[in-house]
């Protein structure tokens, strides 16, 4: 369980860990929007550098995190390939792959850049914010909205964040167990997918059921203790920096 760090909260005593959850969520939105609408390569690099600094500041184990990015390697490659082959444009003469277009590759790389930056935003936020804080923040933002069951929504989001790392761990464990029984010898990718997806889905549903039962047993209620938030100058400075980056990316 402890081996995987991706999307796990890792307790440290850093500025980002201590930051007011409400402001952190706003920063997350600003950086995610910047990553989604960034028009040029240097914007991606700027955001990427900023996120690396955030990872460093939060003292998150980035070597391990980047190694674990391989889980998303397949999706990133798929995004680049689909774009490269489906978007019409000039052929790339020096590559021995027929059907690729220069514009397609550029668009694919742009999408991949967005995806990596957004993933890193999620890593920084989940690594520095405990689920309880996250749930409390969502509840705080939704409280003024009429007819919205803010506690229920906050619980659902919190549970999703509880489940994501657990499911990653479970999937990795399941794949290791399958490797121990020589799954690599099966050449049919559909069969391999079948053995990966169905047990995983079943485990996911079972796990969800167990968490629900554990919550029920401890008297889960929507009338819960409310959190008290505090923010300091440093938190506002980080928010101002994120706002500046957002405005720079969007307006350029």
């Amino acid at each position, binding site marked *: *369980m*402890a081996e995987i760090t991706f999307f*796990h*909260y*890792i*307790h440290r005593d850093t500025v980002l860990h201590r930051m007011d959850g409400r402001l952190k969520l706003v920063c997350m939105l600003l950086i995610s929007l910047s990553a989604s609408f960034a028009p040029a390569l240097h914007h991606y690099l700027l955001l990427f550098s900023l996120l690396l600094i955030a990872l460093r500041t939060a003292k998150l184990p980035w070597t391990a995190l980047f190694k674990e990015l391989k889980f998303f390697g397949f999706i990133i490659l798929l995004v680049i390939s689909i774009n490269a082959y489906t978007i019409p444009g000039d052929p790339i003469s020096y590559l021995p792959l027929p059907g690729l277009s220069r514009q397609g590759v550029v668009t694919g790389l742009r999408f991949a850049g967005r995806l990596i930056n957004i993933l890193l935003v999620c890593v920084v936020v989940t690594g520095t914010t*405990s*689920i*309880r804080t996250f749930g409390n923040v969502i509840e705080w933002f939704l409280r003024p909205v009429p007819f919205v069951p803010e506690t229920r929504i906050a619980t659902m989001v919190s*549970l999703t964040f*509880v489940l994501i790392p657990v499911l990653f*761990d479970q999937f990795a464990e399941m794949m290791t167990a399958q490797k121990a029984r020589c799954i690599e010898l099966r050449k049919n990718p559909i069969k391999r997918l079948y053995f990966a997806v169905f047990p995983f889905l079943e485990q996911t549903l079972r*796990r969800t059921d*167990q*968490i629900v*039962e*554990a*919550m*029920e*047993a*401890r*008297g*889960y*209620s929507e*009338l*819960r*203790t*409310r*959190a*008290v938030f505090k923010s300091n100058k440093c938190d506002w400075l980080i928010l101002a920096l994120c706002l500046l980056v957002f405005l720079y990316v969007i307006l350029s």
Partner: protein
Amino acid sequence: MPLIETQNLTHVFPDGTVAIENINLKIYAGEFVIIAGANGSGKTVLARHLNGLLQPTKGQVLIEGQPICKNIVNARKKVGLVFQDPDRQFVGQTVAEDVAFGPENLNLPPTQVETVVKASLEVVGLSPFSRQNPHVLSGGQKRKLAIAGILAMKPKIIIFDEPFTGLDYPGVVQVLQQILHLHAMGHTILLITHELEKVLAHADRLVIIYKGHLVEDGKPEAVVYRSERYGVRMPLRKGEEVKEMSWLK
């Protein structure tokens, strides 16, 4: 008046399987009761009824004379259930957060939640680990955390569902000491197990469930000799007394 009482408690699953049938059981304050039985005998189903997680097909569960269905929150507050696999019941990302889950559900003020969490972690000796991820604790520590999560709700009775499963010898000793400490503090203990040798020496009563029926209920030294006919290993060697069997020597 018994703390918990089941009256003709019956549970039938939707596929028609009878999990437990006509269970009549009374647990009194301060008792240490072991519920034993082979796999699939209905022990866990019975435990889930006592905490209100399952609704009976027939019969009822009373807590301090009140039917459980009338106030389910009260039942969950008074009857704490420690699950067999603690890994699957953690909802917090740190030890302290997980313990806080119960008192927050009870809508206690934040300062009181903090006090209760600290006190519960202190009781089980996990205070130095309050900022740790629950999943990185050892097997024995995970069980202790599950206990702390229950203690924070200040229950009168604590049900342990197979608390020794998967633990090594030091882990079993740690958990057993914890359970005995809680009993000494005045908690009523109901422990579900098929490993009688680990705990029987400390119990006041032994109840055996067999194929969904309560078949034995009495003093451990009176009941234990008949345990094997119900699929539970008789833990005593020739000439050994029940009280000599403790793992805490």
